[in-house]
C-alpha cells in the first residue's frame, strides 16, 4: 500500500516569552491510502499541532512531512489541492450567509464548476440530513447542524485526504454517531479516501479507525490497530471500582507494587468516583480493596473489564486522559 501521509522526526517547538513548549517531539508516522487513522491523546498532547503542520497551516521546527508525496513545507500549494480540514467546535462559515450560500461560496473557492457544485451541495445536504436548513442562515443553526455543514464543506472538493480535528467535539450522541458512520462510509467509498482523525474520545477512535497512534506530550507512544493494541494488554488485569466519594485521595494506588496505572472519573451529580485500575496480577486487587476499606470508602460496584484504548493509554502513561484525574506510574 502506498503512503498518503509520511512524517519523519517531525518536531515543533513553540517559544513563548516565559516558556518553551515542545508540542511535537520527533514524530515519525506512515499512513496508507484508504486508511482511517486515529491520533489519540489528551488535550495538549500535540494532535492539533500535527494536523496543522500536515495541512500547511504551520511550519515544523525540524523533521519532514509529506502528504500524498508532496513536501508540506516546499509544496504547500500542491498539498492544499488534495486535502480538506474539518475541525470540531468551530464556526463552519459566514453567519450572515445561508447554509446553501456558504457551501456555494466554498465550492467556488475549491474550483468546482457551477453544475458540479450544485449537484455536490444537493447531495451532501441530503446525505447529512440538513436539506431543510438549506436556506437558513448559518448563525441560526444548532451546534450539531453547524458541524454537518462543516463536514459537508470539507467533502465538497472530494479531497484525497481528509483531516478531522476532534470532529465530534461538543456534539450530542446521535449526531456524533451519524457523522462518524458517514465519515467511515466516505473513506470506504472514495478511491483514495484517507482520513486522519484526532480525538480524545477513545470509543470514537475504536469505532472508526483501522489504526491508531497514541500521543502524549508530543511523542508517539504506540501505534497499531485498536485490537492489536488491546491484545497487548491481555496479560494485565483491569478492574472498575465505583466508590461513593468524590473527594477521597486515591494517590496511594499508584504507590502499590504491581499497579501499572489507574484513572479516576468523578461524577459530581451522583457523588461517585469510578476508578479504573490496571494491575499485572489479580492478587494486587485484594490489597487495593482492603486499602479502600481501611480508608472507610463505600464501594458501590466492582467489575472486571475488557481492555479498551483508554487502558492502552493508562498502561503507557500510568494515568487517564482527563486533566486532574492523574495517577502516576507505579
Amino acid at each position, binding site marked *: 500500500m502506498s503512503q498518503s501521509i509520511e512524517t519523519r522526526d517531525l518536531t515543533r517547538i513553540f517559544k513563548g516569552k516565559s516558556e518553551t513548549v515542545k508540542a511535537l517531539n520527533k514524530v515519525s508516522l506512515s499512513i496508507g491510502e484508504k486508511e482511517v487513522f486515529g491520533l489519540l491523546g489528551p488535550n495538549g498532547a500535540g494532535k492539533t499541532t500535527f494536523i*496543522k503542520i500536515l*495541512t*500547511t*497551516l*504551520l*511550519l515544523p521546527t525540524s523533521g519532514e512531512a509529506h502528504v500524498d508525496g508532496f513536501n508540506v513545507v516546499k509544496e*504547500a*500549494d500542491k498539498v*492544499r*489541492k488534495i*486535502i*480538506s*480540514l474539518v475541525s470540531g467546535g*468551530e*464556526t*463552519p*462559515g*459566514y*453567519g*450572515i*450567509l445561508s447554509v446553501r*450560500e456558504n457551501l*456555494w*461560496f*466554498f465550492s*467556488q*473557492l*475549491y*474550483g468546482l*464548476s457551477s453544475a458540479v457544485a450544485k449537484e455536490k451541495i444537493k447531495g451532501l445536504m441530503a446525505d447529512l440530513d440538513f436539506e431543510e436548513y438549506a436556506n437558513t442562515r448559518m448563525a441560526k443553526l444548532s451546534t450539531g447542524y453547524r458541524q454537518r455543514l462543516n463536514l459537508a*464543506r470539507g467533502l465538497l*472538493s472530494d479531497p484525497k485526504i481528509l483531516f478531522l480535528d476532534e470532529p465530534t467535539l461538543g456534539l450530542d450522541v446521535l449526531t456524533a454517531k451519524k457523522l462518524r458512520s458517514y465519515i467511515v462510509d466516505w473513506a470506504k467509498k472514495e478511491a483514495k479516501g484517507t482520513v486522519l482523525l484526532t480525538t480524545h474520545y477513545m470509543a470514537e477512535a475504536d469505532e472508526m479507525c483501522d489504526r491508531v497512534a497514541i500521543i502524549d506530550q508530543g511523542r508517539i507512544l504506540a501505534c497499531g490497530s485498536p485490537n492489536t493494541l488491546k491484545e497487548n494488554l491481555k496479560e494485565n488485569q483491569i478492574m472498575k471500582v465505583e466508590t461513593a466519594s468524590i473527594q477521597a485521595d486515591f494517590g496511594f494506588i499508584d504507590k502499590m507494587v504491581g499497579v501499572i496505572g489507574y484513572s479516576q472519573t468523578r461524577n459530581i451529580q451522583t457523588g461517585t468516583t469510578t476508578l479504573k485500575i490496571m494491575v499485572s496480577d489479580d492478587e494486587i486487587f485484594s490489597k487495593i480493596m482492603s486499602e479502600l476499606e481501611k480508608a472507610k470508602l463505600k464501594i458501590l460496584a466492582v467489575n472486571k473489564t475488557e481492555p479498551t484504548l483508554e487502558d492502552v493509554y493508562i498502561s503507557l502513561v500510568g494515568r487517564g486522559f482527563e486533566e486532574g484525574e492523574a495517577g502516576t506510574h507505579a
Partner: protein
Amino acid sequence: MAVNTILRTVKQAIWLGWKIDTNWANPLVFAIYYLVRPLASLLIVGFIFLIGSLASPSGVFDPQYFAYMFVGNCFFVYVTHVMMSMSILIHEDRVHYEVLKHIYLSPASLKWYILGRALNGVLNASTSLILTLGFGLLIFQGLLGVQIPINWLGIDFPLLALSLIIGMFCFLALGFMLCGINIMTSRVQFMLTEYVSGTLYLFGGVVFLPEILPSWGQTISNALPITYFLKSIRFAILHQTSFDAQTNIAYLVLTTVGAIILGIGVFKIAEYKARRDGLIDRKEEY
C-alpha cells in the same frame, strides 16, 4: 493554478463583500448610508471653507480652491473604502467569522480572495463617489449658488481613466500591505487604518496644497502616490494649475510601483510568519 478557479474566487469574494456590507440593512437604507457618510465629510469641509472665506478679512471666496478641495475630498473615498475594507477583512474572517484558515487552505489562495474583497471596495467607492459628486454639486452649486468650475464636456476622460486605473493598483497594493500587517498583529486593524488614511489625508494634498506644508511634510507628500493621483484627477476634471501631465503620470507610476513592491513584500513576509507562528487561525480573546 486554473484561471477559472481564480476568477470564481474573485467573483465570490466580491459577492461576499457585498453581502457582508449590506446584510445589516435594506437596500434603501444602505444606499442612504453610502451617500450620507462621504457627503457629510464633504459638507463639513465645504462649509468650513465657505464660512472661513467669508469670515476672513478679505472676505473673498476662491472658487478654484473650493473646486480643488471638492474634487480631492470626493476621490479620497477610494482610500477609505478600498484600503479600509482590505484592512479589516483579515480580522473579520479570522476572529469574527473564523473562516480565514479554510480560505487560506483553498486551492485559490488567500491573495485572490483578498483581491475580490478589495474589488468590492472599489465598486462601493465608485458608487459612493458618483453619489457624492452629484449630491455635492446639487447642494453647493444648485442650492447655495457656489460656482464650482467643472466643465463636464471638457473633462479629459483618457487622463481620468488612466489615473484611476493606476491609482487603483496603488490602493490595492497599500491594502495588501495593511492585510499583511493585520495578519501579523492583532487588535490594530481599526487604529492602523485610521493612521494610514489620516496620513494620506494630511500629506496627500486632499484638501490643501502640499506646497503649504513644511519642507519635511512636502518630502513625505512627494513620496506618496496619492499626491500624484489627485493631481492627475484634478487636472483631468478641472484643468487647474500649470501641469505637466506626463511627468505627473510618471511619478504616479513610479510611486505606485514602489507601493506594489512594498505591498507584495509585506504580504509575503506576513504569509511566511503566519505559517511559522500559526497566525492564520489565531484566536483573540477580547
